[in-house]
């Protein structure tokens, strides 16, 4: 992918700059973001078992998600009501904050056999966009270590039309379902849930 090298360069530039204190998130943004941790976990890493982690999330995906919640184009329990409380500028500032937080993946219970099968299926159907076994957050949130019930809700929302799905992803999910059935998709969820730090 062409963008990869470009991104790599950006990350290096970013790392070099990160020693300049001026770039530290400002206290008001820290405070704004700290208001979310009661649900999403301290600094955005959720202890689970359900509410998703938002630490280490690609900033653009974060912004898109918050705006979709705010517009009501993405189904949600609470985030629709929450996102309406923030301006574009505040959402962008929080996006930077959470993108810079290191995601801590807390352990979840999963079926190792299913996870093994899911790993293979992920490589065949999902890796292209959710790279490094879903560790990378480019297209979406980090899938590796994401809360399993949340992943099921998201997949269900895509399939039921409650949330707009990328056309190419839809094709892949349909292929997977046709070839492996619902259990195949569940296996991929177990694969993501099997990845943890501690």
């Amino acid at each position, binding site marked *: *992918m062409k*963008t990869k090298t*470009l*991104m790599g360069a*950006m*990350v290096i*530039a*970013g*790392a070099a*700059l*990160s020693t300049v*204190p001026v*770039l*530290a*998130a*400002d*206290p*008001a943004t*820290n*405070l*704004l*973001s*700290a*208001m*979310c*941790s*009661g*649900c*999403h*976990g*301290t*600094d955005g890493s*959720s*202890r*689970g*078992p*359900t*509410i998703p982690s938002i630490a280490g999330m*690609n*900033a*653009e*995906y974060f*912004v898109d998600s918050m705006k979709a919640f705010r517009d009501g184009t993405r189904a949600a*329990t*609470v985030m629709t*009501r*929450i996102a*309406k*409380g*923030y301006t574009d500028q505040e959402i962008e500032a929080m*996006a*930077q*904050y959470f*993108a*810079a937080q290191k995601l801590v993946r807390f352990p979840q219970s999963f079926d190792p056999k299913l996870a093994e099968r899911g790993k293979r299926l992920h490589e065949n159907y999902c890796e292209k966009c959710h790279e490094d076994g879903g560790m990378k*957050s*480019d*297209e979406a949130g980090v899938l590796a270590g994401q*809360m399993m*019930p949340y992943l099921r809700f998201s997949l269900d929302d895509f399939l039921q039309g409650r949330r707009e799905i990328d056309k190419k992803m839809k094709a892949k999910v349909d292929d997977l379902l046709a070839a492996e059935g619902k259990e195949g998709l569940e296996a991929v969820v177990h694969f993501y849930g099997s990845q943890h730090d501690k």
Partner: protein
Amino acid sequence: MERISRRGFIKAAGSTALVGMLGAPYLALGATKKVVVVGGGPGGATAAKYLRRLDPGIEVTLIEPKKEYYTCFFSNEVIGGGRTLETLRFTYDGLKKHGVQVVHDTVTGIDGGAGTVTTAGGQRFAFDRCIVAPGIDFKWGAIEGYDEKASETLPHAWKAGEQTMLLRRQLESMADGGTVIIVAPPSPYRCPPGPYERASLIAHYLKTHKPKSKILILDPKDGFSKRPLFEAGWKKHYPGMIEWVSGQKGGKAEAVDVAARVVRTEMDQFKGDVINVIPPQTAGRIALAAGLADDKGWCPNDPATFESTLVPKVHVIGDASIAGAMPKSAYAANSQAKVCAMAVVALLSGKQPPTPSYFNTCYSMIAPDHAVTIVGVYRLQDGRISEVPGSGGITPVDASEEMLRREMAYAQSWFNNITDDIFG
């Protein structure tokens, strides 16, 4: 793929803001600054932890009599039989790891002028700033016949622990066909939806085990938090089981007869087999004793910093504080604690406190697969904590069963994450 590159770009830019919370450019200079925190509930414990996270150079002492804290949040589930009390127990070991000095004692005096706190155990602590979060106390006697002694027979269960279990045991030993009376408190009080969540979860227990029983809520108010959602849930899961008597309809309890298990209102008498009296409330007693409360018993403050308007250098957060549009909840206390901690760190180094923002969520469980929420996003407007117009509010009344199920699933995560943010 145009989208990837767009997202990739921002991600890269984002990685420059690495320092996050810990990088707040406020470090207290000069001699070690001392902050004393009074009370180790959601308010006090969060404040102590975040002070240390923001500036490890500050000496933080937390004074709390109890070695173990039982959360009120989710205690209604214990009362309904859906969880054990043990799952609500937290210790202060996590705070100690952040370098908070935890002292188990009861604060008896706070002197803002001298900058000292004194305790029942005869200890004395000096402070540059003090943060007070003692929660609530009850107005014993406001309902005739209901004093602390009476609560050993007719539990309030509005502070978690032994009281929670007392109410649970009484429900367990009640015969089928019995009447449970919940005496709801007047506003303001801790956890506005709490009495109605309690009625729901007791109803769930009764429906499963003692289906001929009834629940009567005697209320001095004419409305309550999330009312349309509770009423819809009651109709769906517990038809005919829960009766709510509003203030207008004579629901205000005037007196209780403990021995006879009778609640007297202006016009009527109600006999209950189990009676749960949630009395009128004030800020925790120490706040009143220290001159931090107004004549109504709650603590006025500058909402940008939560510094008392009555006693300088002393801040009041959590249930004890007056906080504009915010309800008295654990989420609110946790949110206020962060605003206050940031402000205190700034003030200690002679800086301007950051622009504040505040937040609240309360999950209420109605049945095992049915929960609802209220959300509040707040900013400071004309010196008052006010909701951002058009945001927040309650779960839509027409929410699908799928969404109500999810709210229940998410509630569990809220509990795990907020308790970790407070005590972890």
